[in-house]
């Protein structure tokens, strides 16, 4: 399958990519790993007139710690994130999430920034980054702005990103000590996209749990934080029975998707089951 015609530009720097985006206008698209965009172009679901390749820009490829924040360059691949010693020691949930994406070939090419910009409702990063309360740094020729991840996703394949803007960095605050987090998913067996993915994070304070965060992907058109479960467990001992009851709230008030992989009812059931599994892991009952 062959995409329709387009102009191709290899950007050597962020500055050059932004200039090209401005010059080529809304018909241009950024090409990062290409593992969402190229399949869509081959099927001609997407026919951009110009591609601006940021895959070779080294200033967008890094993972570092800056004053209790993990700073991740937008064009860092899932494989590099999965293998990162820094992530594995400071916030292993992020490395685990990266490792569950697709297969090794997909992880070698696909990038975290590309995944966020694409906003596939079944993508893995959104749940983990929502639970971690990450921020997205969005850069245009004139400014750089910071968007909370919860405000970034706006619906099916829709984000806060403007035509002439580039995601340059993802910033994740390092959680306090005694915090545990995990990401678990029920995957589509061929693509490994999440039918339901759940990220959970809690901080233990003397027998009870605070800072409870539960986030879902795959359940609805947009990934979301499940405040119902969070509020039911905040400050609680979160033992077996209590946890079980709280997780029954999963997806309450959300427009749950139904498709040929899973009906609305089955997805809701999976959300309940995966919330409980993830929360058991982080509260040490798994």
């Amino acid at each position: 399958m062959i995409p329709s015609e387009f102009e191709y530009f290899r950007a050597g720097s962020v500055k050059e990519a932004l200039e090209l985006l401005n010059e080529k206008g809304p018909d241009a698209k950024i090409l990062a790993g290409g593992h969402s965009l190229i399949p869509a172009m081959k099927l001609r679901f997407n026919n951009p007139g110009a591609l601006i390749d940021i895959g070779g820009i080294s200033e967008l490829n890094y993972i570092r710690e800056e004053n209790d924040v993990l700073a991740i360059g937008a064009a860092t691949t899932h494989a590099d994130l999965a293998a990162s010693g820094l992530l594995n020691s400071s916030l292993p949930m992020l490395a685990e999430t990266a490792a569950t994406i697709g297969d090794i070939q997909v992880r070698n090419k696909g990038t975290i920034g590309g995944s966020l910009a694409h906003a596939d409702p079944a993508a893995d990063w959104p749940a983990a980054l929502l639970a971690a309360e990450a921020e997205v740094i969005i850069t245009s020729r004139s400014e750089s702005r910071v968007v909370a991840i919860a405000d970034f996703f706006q619906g099916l394949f829709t984000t806060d990103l403007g035509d002439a803007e580039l995601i340059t960095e993802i910033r994740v605050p390092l959680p306090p000590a005694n915090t545990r987090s995990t990401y678990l998913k029920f995957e589509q067996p061929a693509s490994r996209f999440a039918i339901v993915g759940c990220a959970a994070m809690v901080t233990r304070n003397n027998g009870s749990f605070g800072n409870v965060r539960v986030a879902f992907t795959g359940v609805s058109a947009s990934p979301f934080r499940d405040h119902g479960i969070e509020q039911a467990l905040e400050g609680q001992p979160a033992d077996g029975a209590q946890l079980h009851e709280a997780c029954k709230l999963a997806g309450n008030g959300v427009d749950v998707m139904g498709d040929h992989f899973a009906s609305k009812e089955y997805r809701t059931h999976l959300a309940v089951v995966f919330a409980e599994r993830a929360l058991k892991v982080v509260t040490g009952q798994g």
Partner: protein
Amino acid sequence: MSVPISITINGKIYESEVDSRLLLVQYLRETLRLTGTHVGCDTSSCGACTIIVDGKAIKSCTMLAAQAHGATIITIEGLANNGALHPLQESFKEEHGLQCGFCTPGMIMTALQLLEDNPQPSEAEIRHGLEGNYCRCTGYHNIVKAIYHASRKMGKEVVHG
């Protein structure tokens, strides 16, 4: 739009002018006639088109030839050394790791990176590492055996110099 590219493939430098929309797998198969790399699904799923780009296993049906400018690539044609099969190729033969052989080049290229990252994998690690490669004939069992066998063979070679 025509894009100039220069790529090192199996140790040889190729310079070409390619259409921006030419896929890397088409460049290999149709322009260079390196037909060992196969197209199974053309939808990023089956892994038959897997090659090594700058040390990483990549599905070449999901990459533009233009994106490979400056890269160093190994395809299945680059594995044998002066007619002597690579231990992975040898093991696929010895352990009957193929039936029709269509998936084999992709399996071997993925296995090459797998063994690079983890030279002595367990059976479970091999199965996990092959998530991105489909085989419609063998049931995978002998493919896993072949990769396991090759890893032990290659380990021994290193020990004995």
